[in-house]
């Protein structure tokens, strides 16, 4: 047992810190800090900066232009990036599709798509969920019928995050309706510009257009856009989900969130004294900090166990459940911390040309609290994760 970082790891942390200090544009970190919405250009700019340094694809092998970091390095980067208020890396191409292509794609697909993901030529979105297929993903109905050298796709995807920015979507489609659900699914890459595709925004409860519905009406997709074998898509989809669940603990986000909470609690006043001295509030903060300290170590224990490149198993479900509970608790406390100034609607409060309403940190907090209720719903809900844990541990 040794809880300290090695000299090499410490040096790596310094390197990351220096990079963030020198290369992260203040305009971006200001937006992240104030909770302002990041536009497509903002995210592309940050991706390009990371790519310039060879750090965009943290988990990709070097041969594909990745950083090939080990779990500890990834953890250090995530921690520092969150601390510096760097934008989140949009995961759909980089950490969802790419591992699938590397493992199951053909050479032409790897050669064509992987560099485009790195360079920002393509913005991918994830077309898994449907109105009738959420937790029960395998019941998906979007149909793809082979006609000559094309598939004809009909159906609907939903909850498609940032689909409004995407030029590509990877989809799970039903290619055989006559077999067991899991055995009739294929993994298809689709160009969003293809005639017959319509994207409609869904406004979330915090007022943001973060997700979309995507409709497919006789959409012609070249057969070469099939990944792997027809009707084997479920295997690939599950492989992708295990990657979706790495960094699911969000320890870096929680640590940055907790720091922000403490900064706020130091300046907010309660009964004429700083809120951080209020025993009830201090107790709430202490409990979540204690949970987070243990979580950080749980996270490191689990990720260092998993051999590099290999996604952890049932433990990732544990990380997801506890990690999201902690993040949501921090959001709750931060909202509470600002008292009545949690009440204003954020887009007004954030309107660029005006002074903020109340303290400048207050505006996005209620919206963030509500928006992050999604953490325990998506990527396999916390109920589904608990089901997985029980099933694996009790052999059910």
């Amino acid at each position, binding site marked *: 047992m040794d809880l300290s970082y090695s000299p090499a790891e410490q040096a790596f942390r310094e390197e990351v810190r220096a990079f963030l200090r020198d290369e992260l544009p203040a305009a971006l970190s200001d937006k992240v800090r104030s909770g302002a919405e990041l536009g497509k250009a903002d995210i592309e700019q940050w991706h390009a900066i990371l790519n310039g340094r060879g750090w965009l694809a943290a988990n990709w092998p070097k041969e594909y232009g990745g950083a090939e970091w080990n779990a500890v390095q990834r953890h250090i980067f995530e921690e520092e990036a969150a601390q510096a208020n760097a934008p989140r890396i949009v995961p759909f191409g980089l950490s969802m599709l790419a591992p699938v292509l590397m493992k199951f794609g053909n050479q032409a697909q790897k050669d064509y798509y992987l560099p485009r993901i790195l360079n920002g030529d393509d913005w991918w979105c994830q077309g898994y969920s449907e109105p009738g297929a959420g937790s029960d993903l395998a019941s998906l109905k979007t149909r793809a019928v082979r006609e000559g050298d094309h598939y004809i796709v009909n159906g609907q995807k939903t909850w498609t995050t940032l689909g409004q920015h995407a030029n590509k979507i990877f989809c799970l489609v039903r290619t055989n309706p006559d077999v067991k659900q899991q055995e009739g699914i294929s993994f298809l890459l689709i160009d969003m510009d293809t005639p017959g595709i319509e994207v409609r925004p869904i406004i979330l*409860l915090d007022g943001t257009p973060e997700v979309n519905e995507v409709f497919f009406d006789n959409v012609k997709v070249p057969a070469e856009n099939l990944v792997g074998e027809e009707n084997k898509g479920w295997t690939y989809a599950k492989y992708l989900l295990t990657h979706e669940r790495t960094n699911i603990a969000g320890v870096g986000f929680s640590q940055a969130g907790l720091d922000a909470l403490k900064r706020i609690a130091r300046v907010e*006043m309660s009964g*004429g004294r700083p809120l951080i001295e209020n025993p009830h509030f201090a107790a709430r903060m202490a409990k979540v900090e204690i949970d987070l300290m243990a979580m950080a170590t749980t996270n490191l224990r689990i990720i260092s166990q998993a051999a590099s490149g290999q996604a952890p198993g049932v433990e990732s479900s544990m990380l997801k459940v506890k990690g999201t509970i902690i993040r949501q608790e921090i959001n709750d406390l931060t909202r509470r911390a600002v008292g*009545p100034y949690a009440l204003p609607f954020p887009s007004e409060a954030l309107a660029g040309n005006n002074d903020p309403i109340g303290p400048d940190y207050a505006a996005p907090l209620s919206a963030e609290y509500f928006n992050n209720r999604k953490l325990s719903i998506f990527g396999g809900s916390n109920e589904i994760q608990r089901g997985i844990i029980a099933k694996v541990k009790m052999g059910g």
Partner: protein
Amino acid sequence: MDFNLTEERQMLQDTLRRYLSDKYTTATRNTILESETGMSADIWAGLAELGVIGALFTEEEGGFGGAGFDITTVFEELGRAGVVEPMLETAVLGGRLLAALGNDSQTALIEEVIGGGLHLAFAHGEPTSRYDLNRVATEAKVSGGDIVLNGRKAVVANAEAAGYLIVSAREGGAVDDEAGISLFLVPAGTSGVTLRGYPLFAGGRAAEVTLDEVRLPASARLGAAGAAYGAIAGAVAAANVALAAEALGAMVTATELTRGYLMTRQQFGRPIGSFQALQHRFSDLLIELEQARSAVINAAGHLSDPVAERDRQIAAARNLIGRAGRLVAEEAIQMHGGIAMTQEYELAHIAKRIVMTDHRFGDTDYHLERFIALSAA
């Protein structure tokens, strides 16, 4: 012991519930949320006509109710339907302050309030006062025969629509003394008053109010100089009963929506309500809901008690409602899955109403501390 509503209150509940389920649909309400004024003049007139505002005042004041259980009857219904119109500001806070302190010409305004023709706003909280009722830095100075106000008021709900702001200001004592606080009736548009209005996250509007050398005649004072704290605490006590009842109503709706969804949403070939993991959690919501209802009844039943017991009961209710409300809002969203995250789904608004209640006149922790202090006394 009798836990039934009186015949009059039962009628009020029935009429109001019917009116709101006809007129206050999700679509209508969502249009109101996006509107410039953040409220509907038609709905307000309708509520006045039904006697909903009058039910919040005693017969002496010109109404036909005014007791704790009248407040809870009205506000539970407003909460169920997710109503964003400023009943709390105009009728409960504004109305009670006028009734408690006003002279004849000032209390005459109550008739207009009951008729639906006049809005009020209570401009009390300040940028760093948080939930403390005694912390008032805004100053009132007597100058010649006039009074001059200077200061800032924070998140003043309904300020833009109000015909009068009821502004608290200090005429003596230290910044956190109960003694020395006065109230003033400030007509809309008075020179030196600046409003910066904005919509609220859970509906309705508020404003940051700046008072810069606001000159008023001495007749603008409500009650005696420096002696308004008792009336403020009384009006806020009633507002806390109203908020607790409103949250309860919203919790009922959240739970009903969840029940309906659990029974109809199919995943894995069966209703998700057939999964025991969700059944137990749904049962917990119903248990908490019963506790919440009892807490509201306790608070309403003690609204006319001596101040210390009144406030202890109210602190207990708001603390319990704060805890149960958060649980109901979060669990209802979770058990719905993605659909509850969408703005146009009713639960999204209802959940916001529940959670945002906890930022008005004290949150869960504030009321816990009040309860501890009042229990020790």
